[in-house]
Structure formats: C-alpha cells, structure tokens
C-alpha cells in the first residue's frame, strides 16, 4: 500500500470539506465519513459512512467495491448492495461490501493511476448513494 499517496489523496478531499480516514484491521481500508446521499426523498438519512478496501499493490490496482454497515438502510437500495462481496469488521463495525465496480465496466472510466485515486473515487460514491431505488 502506498500510504503516502493515499494520505495525500485524502488531504485533497479534506480541503474540499470531505473527511476520510485510512484505517486497518490487518487489511487497509478508507472510511469516508458522512457521504451525502439521495436518501431524503425516501425518508432515509441524508449522509452515511462508506468503507472502501485499499486494493493490493495500490495504486497499480484499481480501487474497487464499496461497503456500508450491515444494518444500513441503503444496502438493499444501492447498486450491487444486495450482492454481498463479504463482511469485514473494522473499528468495531461490521461492514458489508457491495458489488460496485465503477472502474470495472461499472459506469466510470477505466482505471488510470495518473488521474484516479481515493479522492476521485469519492465522486463515484456520491453517485452510488444518490442513485438509490
């Protein structure tokens, strides 16, 4: 994992007002705090925390997937949410990873480590949580 690079990317987000942290349970993740959602129209929270695994070999490997706490009301409503990709325990919370692949033919551009990172992945997460059904 390229810790320095990830921290720089999270710093870019922070400048824009978005808090995100690099955490570990033996495997590394980024937790985005209070990501805005489109939940208001469905009487759901307007923000939620999201976890994203740091891929092995980052930044050579694309960022892939996203997770919500197992009791999140958004899980059944987000793209790939019902298709669990495993449950991880991080910081005392059980997170369920969803089948969400924006850089793997999932609506986003192909991964380009020169342009993309955890800062740009945030844009995908906003879309993911906006387009709930």
């Amino acid at each position, binding site marked *: 994992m390229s810790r320095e690079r990830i921290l720089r990317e999270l710093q870019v987000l922070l400048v824009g007002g978005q808090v995100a942290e690099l955490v570990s349970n033996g495997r590394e993740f980024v937790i985005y705090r209070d990501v805005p959602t489109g939940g208001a129209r469905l009487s759901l929270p307007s923000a939620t925390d999201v976890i994203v695994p740091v891929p092995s070999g980052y930044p*050579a490997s694309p960022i892939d997937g996203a997770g919500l706490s197992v009791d999140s009301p958004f899980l059944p409503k987000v793209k790939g949410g019902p298709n669990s990709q495993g449950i991880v325990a991080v910081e005392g919370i059980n997170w369920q990873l969803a089948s969400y692949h924006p850089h793997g033919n999932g609506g986003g551009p192909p991964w380009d480590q020169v342009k993309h990172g955890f800062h740009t992945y945030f844009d995908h997460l906003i879309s993911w949580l906006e387009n709930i059904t």
Partner: protein
Amino acid sequence: MKREKRIIVRLADPEFSQLKTLLFSRYPYDEWATFARFGWRDTKQALVLTLAALDPPSNGDLDESVGHVKITEPYTLGRALASETHSLAVGIIHSHPRECAPRPSPIDDDMDKYYSTYFGDFAKDRPYVSLILSIVRDQLVASGRVFWKGRWLLVNRFVAETYAVETWIGGYAPKPPENANRGRVARFTSAFGAEASERLRQATVAVIGAGGTGSMAIEVLARAGVGRLIIVDPDHLSESNLERVHGSQPDQVNKGTPKVIVARQHVRAINETCKVEAYLGALPQPEVLDAVITADVALGCTDQQHSRLSLSDLSFRYLIPSIDCGVMLEGENGKITGQVLQLVRFLAADPCALCREMVFPHRISEELMSPEEREFRQAEAEAAKNRGEDPNPYWQGIPQLNTVGYLTGIAGAMAAAYAIGWITGRFSPPFSRTQMNLIAEYFDVQDIPANARELCSCRRAHGHADQGQIDALISAPSHWPRAKLLSEM
C-alpha cells in the same frame, strides 16, 4: 568487526549529461561547480543517493575570475532556503582540472566542513553530498563523500546509468585489475579490452525472475565474469520448468527447490568467483528493493505485469538502467503462428511501463490479489455468468502464455548482452521497445516508440528515490510473505 556502510551514488540522464557539460565548461584548466539535489534510500548495507536535479549557478553565483571554485553567499543561501520547500538531500558537485585526481583539497575540506553544518540547519536529517568529477587519461573519474548522521562516509561506487565512470575512493585511483581467471574471458577481452572485463568483474546485475529468460541471462552473465548477481524469484521449480530453466535438474523438482537456488547452484558450477545473492521474493518488496538498488543494471525476466511495472518504477525513481524481456508463443493444436520476443529499455528518462501502455490495471490487480480473494472473485464471476451478467468486474483471468526454451533462451541472452554493453560502456540497445517474430520475414522487427505522459509520476519523481514514494507506481501487497535472502547451505 562492523562493516562500514557502502555509499553508492547513482547518476542518469538528462542530469548527468548536463552535469558533465557544466562542470567541464572551463576545461582543461579551470574548475566549475553546481549545487544539486539527491534522493536517497538508507538500508542496512548501503546508503544509495540518486541525482534528482541540478541547481546550476546563474551569472555571478560563482567567481569566474579564479580558476578554482569560489561560491558566493547568495547562491548558497538560495539553495539552503529552497531546501525548506523540498525533501531531497542537498549537495555540491565540482570539477577538478583535467588530469588532476578528484581528491579533496584543503579548500574542499573547508567548504565541506562549513556546508555540512550550514545545510544541516536548513535540510535537517538529510545527507549532505559532496562530489568531485575529473577527467584523467580520457577517463571520467569521480570521488565523493557524504555527511550523514554525524559522520563522513566515502563514496564507494558511482553508477552512471549507461556510462562507465571510474570510482576513485577518497580521490585515489583504484588498484590495477587482478589477473585471476582472465583466461576464461580471453576472447571477450581481446575484443572489449581489459578494462571492460574489469568493469564486469566489479559489476552487480540484478535479475528479476529466474525462469526461462532469467536463467539464460544469469548463465551468460556468470560466464562473462560479472562479479555479483542478485537473483530474485518467489517460485519453486516445477516439472514444466525443466524444458527451459538452465541448470535445472529433475531431482530439484522433487525437492521443491526454489528457482533462485537452482540459479545459484548453476552459477557456482560455472564461475565460483561470481557472488550470488538469492532472494525468495519479488519486487517491490523492501528487502528486495534494498538489494536491487545496489546493482549496476537490472533485468526483468518475468511474465508478470506487476514485476514489469516495478522495474519501470525503479528505473526512474532509483535511476537503475533496466531491460525487460518477454516472449510469446502463438498458436494451438500444432499450428504455430508467431514466436515473438520483446525487449524493453527502461532508462531513467524513458517513458514508464504505464506511459508505454505495457501493463493493464485489471491484470495487475488479479496478479496481486490474495489467494482467498482470487478464489472468491472467480466464484463470483462464475455466479455472474450463470445470472447472465458480465463476469469481468469480478475476474477477467490471467492468460497462461505458451513458451518454449529456445525463445526464452534467446530473449534472456539478448538482455544479458545489453547489460554487458552498458556496464562496459561499449554499446547500448539500439531501440526503446523492440519486438521480433522468429518465423516472420526478416523477423518483422519493430520498434514501438512511446512518449511519456505529462502528468505521469515518471516525469515528476525522476531520481527522487524514497523521497518520491508518494509517486511510486506500485506497492507490495501486505499478504505476500516477507522476502528472504537465502543463505548458502
């Protein structure tokens, strides 16, 4: 007795060419100088410094009215203040007149004593570097010293990418070459010259991958008299390797012998004076990196894209000239349609593997996944297929390339040849990335040029070594077992 840390200084173009032009601009009698910035990596065995940038003098920064180097205070202060805006080490590089040894004079001693303290106040916890270059008997010679952690350390070795630079430790000429084993390379020496043979004897080559191509490269280098080989491979010999791994024997398959041990035993049998460091591991693991950055040249001999990307990363951040080689046997059911080999040159100024579009993120991702994740994703891909969905987001599959021993042998031997050319300073690869097809007319030789992308790390972190970690193209997966240096039985 505690062994003194080795100090290695790595130089590469375009800075190295600029440096020579600048330093020898008042030759043959007068000196000149420039401040410079260096990346570095501090390991247990060595402190490796890499020239990242020159900060040449402007008009009036050096006193042109004197033959020796006289630096004005504004030039010094400017570089000191600038050091607070970057994380690189600072140093001064100057020339001595032609035919004068690069031995520090009393003036140089005073200068270094003053600067090591002065820059220590601005660029804290960074080495201070002082290098001297000269031309003696038409040979570029260099010496240097580094103030690091409260001590002065002499530079033991200069590695200048594809140029042959003679290192004068402490400013003293190296001892004349030994004559042992010269009979072995008599025919090589008659063409290349005795000094080329000596350079090989003092050189280190890192070979990443000890399979078909790597084992051939190792054999060629050991027979040519290369002094030290760093061999890296995480795998153990399997039966299908016997067709192409030089030095391999069936009983080693039964014993599950690591490929690096097969290679080391083979080198021993060929040339017992060649030192071998055998690493069970892969790039970019830190233990492997520590060793590889001490090499004069690195050869990439794996069919793994992450290895290719790592090698490319080393070439621009640590200034390690590299050749990557690969082969592909095309065809099936007895019909052979192509026998292709590829050689790629990675010099510090060359476009990286990303810019050359030689690697694909999803392929690398799958190579680097843990076995559990791989298994899970393959099952998910199968399930997606059964649902009538696209399986590719889960798993695209790593194609198993067909290969054959004579192809890997040719590619490995060619890579070794160019390593020898660089080390001896006698020739360089006449291509940036070449492919040839053994069964096409005139081999259908092609050079595949590419340009670096403006925003790529390879343009930004040139020579930044560990200080350019933020621009690393790849990191070692945490699930990989720690790399091990395998000791002699």
